[in-house]
């Protein structure tokens, strides 16, 4: 059997963000897939060490455009644990509300993108039109459509008034009436079903073995959800919801899981808005954080998001490590791609809802053949760059 290596990236018209794939193909079949990350390193973790906790809050919000609120929530609740403060109940409920509204906007966005990737642009148009409803609710509550900036140490930054609650409930009712239609289309439109059923199979045991996260693993029948298994914010107390799973393990199952999760999120939002406890939304937080270390996690739209924070007693953290859910999903994605067709690559990749710039952290260059690793400091990197260009006849 002769195989051919098909390189995709780091810069490729089909990729939305830079990353490098190598697909070993035999005709139209993908035999093996390999991935190299690290092209979108932004130095966020290092930047966090040089800024105060408050500044880090806004910087970490910008790890991702879609799950901005989740990163803020995870960091805020981690630092709150270090500070030893507990946000008031109303604050925690609003924290959950923002998380769920964000999940709604992200899942609607993903449904549209999935439709677009398989050439069903009509689906994309309608889901994105309806996404505007939830975007408007988010803008009304937080004052911004993408980076809401709602979380802070000790609670949330803005309260909800009666008028906002009424408007938000109206918007959610409209979405709630609309979403079953998408679920129905996803399951009954024969061209769509034929395109995504059986594509990108991930059996349950493989999902567990490869440590997949979020809707990807739930669509393979694993009922893991941080909101249920390690409850945070208001989830542990009184907010009822169900984990959505599907046994299909293919792209169709991932569409179904996300559409059903939308319905769950609407129910959570309605519950929070109708049962919002009275009282304060935040407590005062100190500027300096006592020495210690903490791991904080939350269920992002794409899976489990983890932050590790180590403090040294000053107003700046000693170390911040961000594990975005996409990183957990890459090994499973490479498994899903194997044995599939080249034409299935875009939708299989889109099905995990990848976010590459969220994922990219420090990359260590390792020579696979020699088995050596190399870490360069700033000065070494500079020298290497000068030498690299000089060898190619470029005068510096």
């Amino acid at each position: 059997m002769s195989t051919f290596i098909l390189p995709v990236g780091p810069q490729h018209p089909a990729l939305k963000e830079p990353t490098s794939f190598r697909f070993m193909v035999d005709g139209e079949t993908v035999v093996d897939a390999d991935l190299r990350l690290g092209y979108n390193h932004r130095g966020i973790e290092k930047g966090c060490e040089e800024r105060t906790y408050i500044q880090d809050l806004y910087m970490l919000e910008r790890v991702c455009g879609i799950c901005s609120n989740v990163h803020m929530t995870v960091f805020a609740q981690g630092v709150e644990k270090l500070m030893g403060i507990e946000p008031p109940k109303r604050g925690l409920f609003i924290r959950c509300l923002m998380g769920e509204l964000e999940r709604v906007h992200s899942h609607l966005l993903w449904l549209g993108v999935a439709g677009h990737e398989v050439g069903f642009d009509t689906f994309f148009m309608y889901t994105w039109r309806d996404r505007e409803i939830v975007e408007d609710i988010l803008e009304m509550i937080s004052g911004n459509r993408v980076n809401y900036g709602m979380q802070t140490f000790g609670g949330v930054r803005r309260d909800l008034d009666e008028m906002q609650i009424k408007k938000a409930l109206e918007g959610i009712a409209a979405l709630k009436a609309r979403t079953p239609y998408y679920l129905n289309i996803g399951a009954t439109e024969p061209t769509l079903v034929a395109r995504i059923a059986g594509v990108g199979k991930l059996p349950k045991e493989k999902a567990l073995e490869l440590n997949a996260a979020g809707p990807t693993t739930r669509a393979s029948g694993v009922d893991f959800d941080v909101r249920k298994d390690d409850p945070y914010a208001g989830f542990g107390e009184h907010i009822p919801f169900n984990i959505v799973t599907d046994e299909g393990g293919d792209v169709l199952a991932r569409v179904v899981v996300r559409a059903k999760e939308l319905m769950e999120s609407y129910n959570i939002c309605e519950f929070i808005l109708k049962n919002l406890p009275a009282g304060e939304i935040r407590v005062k937080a100190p500027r300096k954080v006592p020495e210690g270390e903490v791991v904080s996690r939350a269920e992002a739209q794409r899976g489990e998001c983890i932050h590790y924070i180590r403090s040294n007693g000053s107003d700046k953290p000693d170390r911040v490590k961000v594990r975005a859910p996409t990183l957990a999903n890459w090994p499973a994605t490479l498994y899903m791609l194997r044995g599939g067709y080249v034409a299935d690559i875009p939708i299989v990749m889109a099905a995990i809802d990848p976010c590459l710039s969220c994922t990219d952290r420090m990359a260590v260059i390792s020579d696979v053949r020699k088995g050596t690793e190399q870490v360069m400091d700033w000065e070494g990197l500079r020298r290497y760059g000068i030498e690299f260009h000089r060898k190619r006849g470029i005068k510096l």
Partner: protein
Amino acid sequence: MSLRLGAMLPEVLRHLFKKPATVQYPFQKIGVPKGFRGKPVMDPNLCIGCQMCVRDCPSEALEIHKESESTDEAGKVTKRFSMTFYLDRCSHCAQCAEVCPKKAIHMDTEFEDAAFDRGALKLTYK
């Protein structure tokens, strides 16, 4: 659930007779909500020069300078401060407005802030 071809077709045909979901920006504008976070506006009469906004700004977009210092007959010292604000660096998080102890900073509702010249994005309140 049975499969049926063109399941979305009735919905698509129905929408032919509905008005568009988008508006014709910039000729037609949708207003922004009440709590919208535009650019920060500072009232120099209220500023006490505590530098809290400068310390907390995640994008280092603010500077506070002392403009003048005067002492009246009763010996009371009055200081005036100005703020230089770089809109090109601002991330519109409103932390400056939140942390200000005298509420001298508030966010306006202006959202069309783009300019061709970076210098035009440097604002001074004094």
